[in-house]
């Protein structure tokens, strides 16, 4: 992998230069939260950690028209615009790698493939806050899945080139880059030490697949199911959630049918309901169990790593505190103070 450095005052020209590839998107502050938005380099929040919605929205939008039907013919005109996404942290890039493996396994999803093809990924290093636990999931650094990756050392940034396309983008911005010296490397090592020492949230994911499997009949699920609101927030904000639904809609104006594809959630009641009204997962506890089994066991057997990247989105989003941290601690029979463990819900 090739490594360069970029002077701090060249960062904005560097990002503007990348606009030669496509629209520039990055983390922008919106009230007390952060979102990925199309903006000028000066508007980006370089200190931002997790956005409300993860970067999966660029690869499969929350809702789009997958197919159109008119005069007995189907048409697929999904053409994503070319984008440069700046500010993806290592956890986010790990999640996209899971996304990539998932959507190209057995059958390649053409919509994903096109979005991937149209996107330049520019990563950015970060310093964790109270809700980050990527250190525990082994996703605090990243070696693949980005085109360019910037590590912020204060007065300068280190630039990794991670793909042939990243290399190609140097035609646009190579003029801002300089070769690295020994001092840059030693500063990087010191930065890594400082960063790794900053993790405050500790969770032990060791042996989780077995523990989740053995806990299939644990009363924890029932307790959690009673508190869960089935709102689906956890699945929408999770960067590795992939499920979707397809629905046909009639467009009156154009007199054509649209097959719409949108994000869907396994915690919704209708998720496993079939024609005739039978529901394979009627109980909320069953649906939550599916989510956590799939994240912590399913991906483990399929890809050798859990589908949690420690971004902390479920930690800050769930209204009743059902998240990877509290569930893992409850299943390990460790102490947890999550809201759901204290709720006394009678009949749900």
């Amino acid at each position: 992998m090739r490594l360069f450095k970029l002077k701090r005052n060249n960062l904005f020209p560097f990002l503007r230069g990348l606009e030669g590839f496509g629209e520039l998107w990055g983390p922008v502050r919106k009230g007390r939260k952060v979102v990925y938005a199309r903006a000028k380099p000066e508007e980006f929040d370089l200190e931002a950690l997790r956005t409300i919605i993860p970067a999966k929205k660029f690869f499969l939008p929350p809702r789009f028209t997958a197919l159109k039907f008119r005069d007995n013919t189907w048409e697929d005109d999904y053409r994503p615009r070319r984008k440069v996404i700046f500010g993806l942290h290592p956890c986010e890039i790990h999640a996209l790698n899971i996304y990539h493996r998932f959507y190209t396994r057995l059958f390649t999803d053409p919509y994903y493939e096109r979005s991937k093809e149209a996107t330049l990924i520019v990563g950015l290093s970060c310093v964790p806050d109270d809700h980050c636990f990527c250190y525990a999931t082994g996703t605090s650094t990243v070696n693949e899945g980005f085109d360019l990756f910037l590590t912020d050392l204060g007065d300068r940034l280190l630039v990794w080139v991670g793909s042939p396309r990243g290399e190609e983008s140097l035609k646009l911005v190579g003029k801002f880059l300089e070769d690295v010296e020994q001092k840059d490397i030693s500063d990087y090592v010191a930065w890594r030490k400082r960063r790794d020492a900053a993790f405050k949230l500790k969770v032990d994911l060791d042996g989780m697949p077995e523990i989740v499997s053995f806990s299939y009949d644990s009363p924890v699920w029932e307790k959690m199911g009673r508190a869960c609101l089935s709102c689906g927030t956890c699945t929408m904000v999770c960067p590795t959630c992939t499920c979707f639904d397809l629905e046909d809609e009639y467009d009156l104006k154009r007199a054509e049918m649209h097959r719409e594809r949108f994000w869907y959630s396994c915690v919704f009641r209708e998720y496993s309901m079939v024609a005739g009204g039978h529901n394979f997962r009627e109980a909320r506890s069953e649906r939550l169990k599916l989510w956590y089994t799939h994240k912590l066991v399913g991906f483990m057997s399929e890809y050798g790593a859990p589908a949690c990247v420690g971004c902390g989105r479920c930690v800050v989003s769930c209204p009743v505190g059902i998240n990877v941290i509290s569930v893992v601690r409850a299943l390990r029979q460790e102490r947890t103070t999550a809201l759901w463990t204290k709720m006394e819900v009678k009949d749900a």
Partner: protein
Amino acid sequence: MHEILYHQDNPYMPERARIVRKYDLTGDVRFFQVRLCNPDKVFPVTSSYSPGQFMMISLPYVGEAPFSITSTPSRPGLFEFCIRKVGRLTSRLFQLEENDFLWLRGPFGNGFPVEKMIGKDLLFVAGGLGAAPLRSLLLYALDNRDLFGKLFYLHGARTPRDMLFREEFFQLKQRKDFRCYLTVDEDPEGDWPFDKGVVTSLFKYVKVNPRNTAAVVCGPPVMYKYVVQEFIKLGIPDANIYMTLERKMKCGMGKCGQCVVGHKYVCVDGPVFTLWDVKNVKGLI
């Protein structure tokens, strides 16, 4: 920078097909024979699938749902489906006439591992609509009769009127090279000439070599437990007991996630599972 080229192949794109024949099998189950409209695809697609695979049937404005193929690849040219009127899509399908269009995607799913069954005795147990996917494998085995050992087919229905492919099985009963036993739970009109009782009562006729038998079951969820007990009693190993399951599916390709059970996607890891899978993945049946 480089131009983006798109593949024309989109596995979400349905393929137009024509209903060439339809008739009612029972009060609420209809049989459809369907032919792909693109002549270049008819033979390659209808001769290369495995018994036990399914297809997504698509009707614009209504949606898409999975249906098991009830025809066999050993008789290519047409796809056959056996469909119960139960929801929005199937109600719309029942309004279609012969020569109307519908749209297909697939075939999807793992299907039965036919190559592993070669040289073995085969024992089929079908209940109600479960006859649909099993008919595919049964006809395949009959068309390649030399490849298999003894063949037993046990089929249960609620009443004689509810028995799918009744006439077809009456004729197959005449064949000397395999054993077909039919039973009904109730016989309100009193003219049923064969066994009465639940399908497990037919196991008394079964004489197979258990260590070299592939057993296949499909039917309503309540049936599995009792039939599997009978298989185990016969001494058939877990890995040779196959069952085909159903779930809600939107893509058929292991993407939409709606058929997921534990860590298995029923659409790509199934719909055919062994008893070993079922014991290891909680919630499959």
